[in-house]
């Protein structure tokens, strides 16, 4: 079988399916934290998690990249209530602390019955969250040290908001991606949704920060307009075919991108493999590729063919 050469858009080397471009996603290290959000009901914990991860698709214009990692049942949360785990990524620990404090303060503390805990071990590298939010208690906040961890109890109108003082951080990997190129928009969207569902169902430690896990306005670095850091990815914009250099195989009329941020490189690689495999199940998908910057910016190069070989059907 053949794969598509990313430079020429023509079949190049023997590979899995003939539709996978022999290229790589270029990913970057980012500082990450995991927040565990619980509430009296599943619905309220979901509302808090969704609100907290809103407007957090890309650090191009957001303070952080964030998303829901997975739902947690009662046995998995510190207080025995239903919850969600959320991953948040930022370029520095200071930026992460600011984003977490703002988002937990405005989106979780405000949400009925919620509590918020760190989902990563408290090592040497931590950020203050409850320790910053406690001042909202106006002197009536109470700290409790339980099991070696400190929590703040902040009085609010439905009782008190319980929040862990510090959150552990880790060096994660952001910017993993795969690009699904299809001949028909409806089928391409459906199969990209399937790829998102497969990743979310099978891989832990990752988030897909864009709406529904899918980005339709993939970007390239820079613009003709001064000061604009990113602009539409013309090489993957079907309506511009013929007037700009294209990286799409013939027949492509619709392209979607899945961006993957993870706590480890391996988790991002595994998610990439699962996403590519799921996308290839749809005949309307003409090719699957990945976005990079020529390999000069990000230290992590996730080669599609390599991860497909390493993470087989059982991945």
């Amino acid at each position, binding site marked *: 079988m053949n794969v598509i050469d990313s430079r020429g858009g023509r079949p190049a080397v023997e590979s899995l399916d003939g539709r996978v471009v022999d290229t790589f996603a270029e990913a970057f290290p980012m500082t990450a934290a995991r927040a565990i959000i619980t509430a009296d009901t599943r619905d309220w914990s979901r509302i808090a998690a969704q609100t907290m991860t809103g407007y957090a698709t890309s650090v191009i214009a957001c303070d952080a990249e964030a998303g829901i990692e997975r739902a947690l049942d009662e046995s998995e949360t510190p207080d025995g*209530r239903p919850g969600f785990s959320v991953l948040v990524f930022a370029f520095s620990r200071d930026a992460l602390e600011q984003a977490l404090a703002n988002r937990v303060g405005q989106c979780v503390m405000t949400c009925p019955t919620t509590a918020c805990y760190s989902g990563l071990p408290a090592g040497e590298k931590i950020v203050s969250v409850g320790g910053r939010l406690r001042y909202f208690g106006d002197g009536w906040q109470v700290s409790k040290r339980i099991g070696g961890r400190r929590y703040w109890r902040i009085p609010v109108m439905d009782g008190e908001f*319980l929040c862990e003082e510090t959150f552990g951080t880790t060096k994660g990997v952001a910017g993993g991606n795969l690009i699904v190129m299809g001949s028909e928009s409806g089928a391409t969207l459906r199969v990209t949704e399937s790829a998102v569902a497969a990743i979310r169902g099978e891989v832990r430690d990752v988030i897909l920060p864009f709406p529904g896990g899918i980005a339709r306005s993939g970007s390239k670095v820079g613009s003709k307009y001064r000061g604009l850091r990113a602009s539409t990815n013309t090489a993957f914009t079907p309506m511009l075919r013929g007037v700009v250099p294209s990286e799409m195989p013939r027949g492509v009329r619709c392209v979607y991108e899945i961006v993957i941020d993870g706590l480890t490189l391996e988790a991002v690689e595994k998610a990439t493999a699962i996403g590519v495999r799921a996308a290839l199940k749809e005949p309307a998908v003409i090719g699957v590729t990945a976005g990079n910057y020529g390999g000069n910016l990000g230290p992590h190069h996730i080669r599609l063919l390599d991860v497909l070989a390493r993470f087989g059907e059982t991945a």
Partner: protein
Amino acid sequence: MPLIFRLASAIGSPVRLGGITPDRLRDMSLVEIARLEVLQGNVSVALGDLFRVSGDGADGRLTFEGDLAGVHEIGRGMTGGEIVVRGSAGRHVGGGMTGGAIHIHGDAGDWLGCEMKGGLIHVRGSAGDHTGAAYAGSRRGMTEGTILIEGSVGSHLGASMRRGLVAVGGDCRDVAGLEMIAGSILVFGACGRAPGAGMRRGTIGVFGMSPVPLLPTFRAAGRFRPLFLRLIRRDLERLGFPPRDELSGEELVLYHGDLVGLGKGEVWCREDGGTP
């Protein structure tokens, strides 16, 4: 294999074992250990004259066997390791300890864990007065650590404690949390008079069904479901304390006090009968 101390015979005058700690004995031979001097009454005696010593303390574990109700200061000042007492222990167990664990499979006397600064004390039986409290003249009782008592305790529980957790499976007598500065005291049985008298901050939970005889300087806030108790419940279970359903989110009555002082302490109890 732990270092084992078997009481050779019934002791007459009280014995003080302060300084006989796992960290100190870790690198000593049995002969050296047997020669260590401790006070019995006002006389120095060799440890080997009181106990038959066997085993090896290299792993930081000590075991005491026999009726040690007249043996005081077990584990006083210990910094790490583990002490197991198979029987009852005397006064001042774990006083001022900063780390490690003491497990007593019997009762403990007065002043258990007084002014402790860290570590764990777990008593399967009951304990006496002044558990986790400050010594006379001191400003602060325990400042860190955990004391678990599956039975009952005497008076002045956690007096002037600054931080840490004390859980009592049975009853406690008068003035639990007297002049408490902060920390948590949970009593799952009945409580004597005036819990939290003079407390500044901190948490007292009394989960017995009988009314809690609070001072009139406490003010009721209403009934709530305190979430943080669920975290404490999980931590208690992790430490081996018998599971307590009282901490799983049931509605409790909250009182603030003691308003003769700072008034930022809280008392949680099941019923509001018998309160001011």
